[in-house]
């Protein structure tokens, strides 16, 4: 059976360059903190990988700290803001469609007495710069906005926001770049945010390693206390293998991100979107977007059923929402699509296809044909055809 993995926004397969680099590094068993030759060899591997991630990010100054996950990187920023402004409190701006790893810490700040403004998006998931700017106040201490939304693929105006903040505000800017970093054709980082989150496994590196870029003057405080690794800010013996894999993946992904496949990718994206609409799906169509993420809903068919029905045919897509009405906590996908004004039924039915530049027009045709067959089979089985 032909298999198609269309869940690249959840995680990407390990790149062979990352695998090979990690296998080679397995023999460098030294602890980077040890003074002897073995320690030095391991430390060199870590520092080479750090330079690769720095190059891929392309910021002119600042520091890249390795962490255990994008979630940890995001939490670290909010923790730093909490500790820095604990006494005076202040105002924080986030978008309504942030990943839970930003959304939940923002709520924790709110509970701690900070004022939090949530900037909404339109029905296709676009975030208007003017709205974000309008939310700013004299006492705004942090603006945290993702670069590419993990569900709709909407590309947020972080570059313009960054420039505006530099000229008109003292607020810190955090950008969650997990779905953008080296995942977009011709990707460039926004100019000098205070913090930028990246994750290895989204670009073909291993799971369990990520990084947080921070400007030199950032208020980051140690996340863990101990042996003083990562310039004293994140103690704990480095995940050398993971970091090496991250470096290797970043090196390859950077080349790919610089290549000019932009136009072609958008053609494929458009074909997918119009094909889904022709099948009767509602599709989020953000103005600015990553060409690799599409969210669609076929009302009446719970997303979970769609996911399993496609998986039976070797097509792997995802959903953040479950069809169960008994679920106590409303899932992420509900929150994001609810913020876009999608109906309950559309939220329950929404599924996400995420891919990369390797997806061809023939693949799109295959996916759409399978989807058409699956929809009609499901409707027939549940007696609705």
């Amino acid at each position, binding site marked *: 059976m032909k298999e198609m993995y269309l869940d690249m926004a959840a995680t990407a397969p390990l790149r062979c360059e990352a695998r090979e680099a990690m296998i080679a590094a397995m023999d460098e068993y030294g602890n980077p903190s040890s003074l002897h030759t073995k320690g030095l060899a391991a430390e060199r591997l870590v520092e080479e990988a750090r330079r690769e991630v720095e190059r891929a990010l392309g910021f002119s100054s600042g520091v890249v700290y390795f962490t255990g996950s994008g979630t940890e990187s995001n939490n670290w920023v909010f923790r730093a803001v909490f500790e820095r402004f604990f006494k005076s409190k202040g105002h924080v701006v986030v978008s309504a469609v942030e990943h839970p790893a930003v959304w939940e810490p923002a709520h924790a700040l709110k509970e701690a007495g900070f004022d939090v403004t949530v900037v909404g998006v339109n029905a296709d998931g676009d975030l208007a710069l003017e709205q974000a700017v309008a939310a700013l106040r004299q006492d705004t201490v942090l603006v945290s906005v993702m670069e590419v939304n993990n569900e709709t693929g909407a590309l947020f105006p972080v570059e313009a926001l960054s420039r505006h903040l530099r000229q008109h505000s003292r607020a810190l800017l955090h950008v969650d770049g997990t779905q953008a970093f080296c995942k977009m054709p011709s990707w460039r980082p926004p100019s000098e945010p205070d913090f930028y989150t990246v994750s290895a496994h989204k670009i073909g590196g291993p799971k369990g390693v990520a990084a947080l870029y921070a400007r030199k003057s950032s208020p980051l405080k140690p996340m863990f206390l101990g042996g003083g690794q990562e310039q004293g800010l994140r103690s704990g013996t480095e995940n050398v293998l993971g970091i090496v894999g991250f470096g290797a993946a970043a090196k390859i992904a950077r080349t790919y991100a610089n290549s000019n496949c932009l136009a072609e990718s958008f053609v494929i994206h458009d074909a997918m979107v119009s094909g889904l609409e022709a099948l009767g799906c509602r599709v989020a169509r953000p103005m600015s977007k990553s060409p690799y993420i599409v969210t669609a809903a076929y009302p009446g068919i719970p997303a979970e059923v769609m996911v*399993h*029905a496609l*998986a039976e045919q070797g097509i792997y897509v995802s959903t953040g929402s479950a069809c*169960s*009405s008994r*679920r106590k906590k409303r899932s992420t996908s509900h929150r994001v699509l609810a913020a876009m004004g999608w109906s309950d039924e559309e939220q329950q039915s929404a599924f996400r296809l995420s891919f990369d530049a390797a997806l061809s027009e023939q693949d799109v045709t295959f996916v759409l044909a399978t989807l058409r067959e699956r929809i009609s089979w499901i409707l027939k089985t*549940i*007696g609705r055809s």
Partner: protein
Amino acid sequence: MDTILVRYGEIGNKGNNRGQFERLLQRQVQERLSELPSVRVERLSGRMVITLSDADGEHFSRALDRLQTLFGVSSLSTAQSTSLELEDLYRAAIQYVEWHWGADIRRFKVEVRRANKQFPLDSSALARELGAILLRHFERLSVDVHRPDAILNVEIRERRAFLYHQTLAGAGGLPVGMSGHAALLLSGGIDSPVAGWQALRRGLLIHAVHFHSQPFTSDRALDKVLRLSSRLSDYGAPHELWSISVTDIQSAIRKSCPSMLHTILLRRMMFRVATSLADRQQWLALVTGDSLGQVASQTLEALHVLDTATDLPVLRPLVTMDKLDIIRIAEQLHTYPISILPYEDCCTLFAPKSPRTRPQRHEVRAAEQHLDVDGLVAAALATVKLYRDGAECALD
């Protein structure tokens, strides 16, 4: 301590079958302890004596853990063995108290059970003698036959004597397999694993059968049921799962039958499929987690209509139990946290808005006229997949 005494109250009473039952239990004890080195299991009338060559006690605690969940075992004691020479016995008693009784034990008594009638002293004489020796040797001790802090038990057997003072409860029940084979309808909910455990406790060797409606149910839901069957294997069930698709059956019912009867019709079809599988495998009963009146499909009328779909006995260990009691057992079995994992299925797509709570036999039969019952059962049986030790394997 060098010995574990295993008692098996219930099967001790089984008359003619006793030898067979004891051999079954002995084999299961040996299997349970097969990972431990140099274990010897002997049968002495009404007891099993397990000798472990383990000085540091590590193997002892592992052996106890493993034996405490073994059905058929009523209680266990760790004991010190000694020869039948009186001098040895007295020395062993002093040493036992010295090593195993804390300073908090002040009042004691000695109880002797003399299975070996050749032994020179009778029970009460030996008890008196041992009591006197211990009193002389340990100043803090005094005899109190009514409210002792500890009892030194002494068992005089054919070749050896055993000393112990603590008794742990066993799992009780009958050795698994003694009562034959049955299919357990394992759903993934809270009740059916508990029903399975209770069936195991009565000596039934259960084979878990799970009905799914993929793609309307997920791989994770199946995985959850595999984990439940793995838990039941800790209590002697084979670690296997027979998974069967009822998607086509649901679809056919949805198409041709009144919606308020969907649930009862589906359950009757599941019973038929399970019965066919049971016939093929020579299992003699169906075990379900039904509890009377718990949900709409568990009214007496529903159970009555349900049972006419099979000619096998339907065993419902939980039928009179309250939900809270079932949950308490599920927590003890560690199945509860698995059962409440939120991989709920999307069968609500098929579910009627208002199911009939008190279905009648005639209306169900009338509805089934519209179904190709035999064809659907055969088609469902063709989807059987067998998982052993968590992995799919070929059908025999």
